[in-house]
C-alpha cells in the first residue's frame, strides 16, 4: 500500500507530483465544466431529437399548416440545430434563457426570483437536517447493535420508504388543517419579513428534513463505522487511550472526509427533493415552475430549469469531492 505512491519512473518531479492537491482540485473543476457543457448538449439535443413537432404541440392538433409555418419561423425552429444550440448556449452564458412559449415572458426574470425561493427552502432544511443527521449517526454508532441503534435503523428504514408527498400531506392534514398551527399553502412573496417567511415554510422544511434525514443518517453511520473498524483505531485502543480520546483524536479527523461527502451528496438530493415538496405546498419555486412548464410543454422553461437543476447538482457534487480531497492528509502533505 505504501508503495502505491512510488513515483513512476521519470526522474524529474512534475508539477503534478509536487502540488498534488492543487492539481487534483483544478482537474476536478475542469471535469465539472466539461460535464456542465455535456449536460447542456444533452438537454438541448434530447429536447430536439425526440419525436413530436413543437409547433403542432404549441398550437394544438387543429392548427392550419400556415399557422404552423408562421410559428416555426417565429420561434426560430427553421434554423439549423447547431446554430440554435449555440445561440441558446450564448444566451444562457449571459443569463438569457429565452422567452417562455406559454406566457411570452422572459424566462430569466421568472427563474431568478424562484431560484432564490427554492435555495432558501433547501438551505433552511439543510441547516436543520445536517447536524441532526450527523448527531443521530454518531449516536447510532455509539450504541452499535444495541437497542437505540436498532430502533434508529428500523425507523430510518421506514423513513426512506416514504414518498415526499405522503409526508407533506400528512403534515398538512395534522398541523395545518386539524391543529391549525401551521400555514398552508406556503405562499411567499417579495418583501416578506424573514420570520414571517420562516413561519410560512415551516411545513415544507419539515417535510424536506424528514425526507433527507434518514438517508444522511444511514450514510453517516456507515462512514463512521468503516473508520472505526480500521487498524489505527485498534492501535488507539491498545495504547490504552480512553474511548473519548480515540474518537475525537483518531476517528474524527479521518471520518471528516467521508462525512463531508455524505452531506454534499444529500444536499444535492435535497435540491431535487424540493420539486415535489414545492408542488405539494404550492410554493413559488423552481420546482413548481418546471412541473407547470412540463405539463404545458413550454420547452424554453423546461430547458432552463433542467439546466439549472443539473448545474446546482453538479456543483454540489464537485464541492463534495474537493472538500474530500482537501481533507486527505496524503494530499495535503505530499512526499
Amino acid at each position, binding site marked *: 500500500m505504501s508503495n502505491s505512491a512510488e513515483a513512476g519512473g521519470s526522474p524529474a518531479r512534475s508539477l503534478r507530483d509536487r502540488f498534488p492537491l492543487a492539481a487534483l482540485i483544478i482537474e476536478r473543476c475542469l471535469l465539472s465544466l466539461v*460535464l456542465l457543457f*455535456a*449536460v447542456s448538449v*444533452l*438537454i438541448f439535443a*434530447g*429536447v430536439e431529437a*425526440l*419525436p*413530436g413537432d413543437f409547433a403542432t404541440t404549441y398550437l394544438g392538433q387543429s392548427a392550419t399548416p400556415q399557422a404552423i409555418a408562421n410559428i416555426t419561423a417565429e420561434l426560430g425552429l427553421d434554423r439549423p440545430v447547431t446554430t440554435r444550440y449555440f445561440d441558446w448556449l450564448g444566451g444562457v452564458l449571459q443569463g438569457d434563457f429565452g422567452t417562455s412559449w406559454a406566457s411570452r415572458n422572459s424566462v430569466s426574470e421568472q427563474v431568478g426570483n424562484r431560484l432564490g425561493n427554492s435555495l432558501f427552502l433547501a438551505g433552511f432544511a439543510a441547516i436543520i437536517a445536517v447536524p441532526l443527521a450527523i448527531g443521530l449517526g454518531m449516536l447510532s454508532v455509539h450504541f452499535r447493535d444495541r437497542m437505540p441503534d436498532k430502533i434508529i435503523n*428500523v425507523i430510518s*428504514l*421506514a423513513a*426512506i*420508504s*416514504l*414518498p*415526499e*408527498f*405522503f409526508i407533506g*400531506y*400528512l403534515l*398538512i*392534514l395534522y398541523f395545518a*388543517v*386539524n391543529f391549525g398551527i401551521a400555514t*398552508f399553502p406556503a405562499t411567499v412573496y417579495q418583501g416578506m419579513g424573514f420570520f414571517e417567511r420562516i413561519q410560512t415554510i415551516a411545513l415544507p422544511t419539515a417535510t424536506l428534513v424528514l425526507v433527507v434525514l434518514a438517508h444522511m443518517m444511514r450514510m453517516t453511520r*456507515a*462512514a463512521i*463505522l*468503516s473508520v472505526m*473498524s480500521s487498524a489505527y483505531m485498534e492501535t488507539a485502543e491498545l495504547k490504552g487511550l480512553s474511548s473519548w480520546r480515540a474518537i475525537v483524536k483518531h476517528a474524527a479527523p479521518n471520518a471528516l472526509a467521508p462525512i463531508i461527502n455524505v452531506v454534499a451528496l444529500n444536499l*444535492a438530493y435535497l*435540491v*431535487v427533493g424540493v*420539486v*415535489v415538496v414545492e*408542488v*405539494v405546498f404550492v410554493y413559488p419555486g423552481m420546482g413548481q415552475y*418546471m*412541473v407547470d*412548464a*412540463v*405539463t404545458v*410543454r413550454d*420547452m424554453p422553461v*423546461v*430547458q432552463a*430549469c*433542467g439546466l439549472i*437543476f*443539473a448545474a446546482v*447538482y*453538479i456543483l454540489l*457534487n464537485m464541492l463534495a469531492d474537493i472538500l474530500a480531497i482537501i481533507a486527505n492528509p496524503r494530499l495535503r502533505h505530499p512526499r
Partner: protein
Amino acid sequence: MRLREIPITAWIGLFGIALAVFCALFAPWIAPHGETEVVGGVWQVPDDQFFFGLDNLGRDILSRLIYGTRTTLLVALAATVISFSLGILLSFTAAVSGGLVDTLFSRFNDLMMSIPTLIFALVVLAVLPQYLFVLILVMAVLDSTRVYRLGRAVALDVAVMEFVEAAKLRGEGKVWIIFREILPNTLSPLLAEFGLRFAFAILFLSTLSFLGLGIQPPTADWGGMVKENKDGIIFGISAALVPGSAIAALCICVNLVVDWLLKRTSSLKGGRGDA
C-alpha cells in the same frame, strides 16, 4: 438456509409483498366495485359499505386501490426488470472488456448520472408522447445508470479474482466468463440491489404520477390517486393519504427484505454490504 433463520422483519416484508402480488393478480375478483365505477357522492366518508370511503369523483377508494396495485406493481416491475437487464449487461461487458469499451460506457454513465433522475425524467417526458411503454422505458433507462454503477463495481471485484484470470488463460469467451464465472458470484448483492431498485421504481412512478406525468387517468394507480384526492386535504378529508400509505407500506416491506439480504451478503463476503 433454514426458514427459522429469516428474521421477523424480513417475514413482515415478505408477507406485505405477497399481499400486494395477490391483490394485483386477483384484482377483478376481490375488488368490491369497478375501477372507474361511480358508486356514491364525492368524498363520501368511510362506512360499512365503503371501507376507505369514496374519492373525488365518488368512486370506491378500496376498489381503486386494489386495481391500482396492478398498475403500480406491473409498471414498477417492468421498469426494474428492463433497467436491471440493461444495467447488468452493459456493466458486466464493461468490466470484462476493460479498456476503451469500459471508458466509453463509464464516462457516458457518469454524464447521465450528473443530471438528477427526476429532472431528467421531467425534461424527457415533456417531449415524449404519453404512452405507457414510453413511461416504462424512460424509468428503466434512467434507473439503469444506477444499476450500471453497482454492477460494474461488483463485477470488477470478481473480475480481478484469479479464477476469472484462469478462465481467460484457458481461452474462454466473454459469454462464459460473464455468465459462468462472474454472475454466480455476484447474485447475492445483485438480488439486494434489485429489491432496492424496485422500491425506488415504486416511489419514482408514484412521484411522476403525482406530478401528472406518469399513469394517465382514469386508470387507477397509487400516485395518481394521491393527485386526484389531494384537494380534499384542506377540508380535512384524508382520502389522499390512503394510497400514500399503500406506497409507503409496500416500500417498507421491500426494504425490510433488502435489509435482510444485505446483511446476509455482508456476512458472506466480510462486510461489503455496509458502505
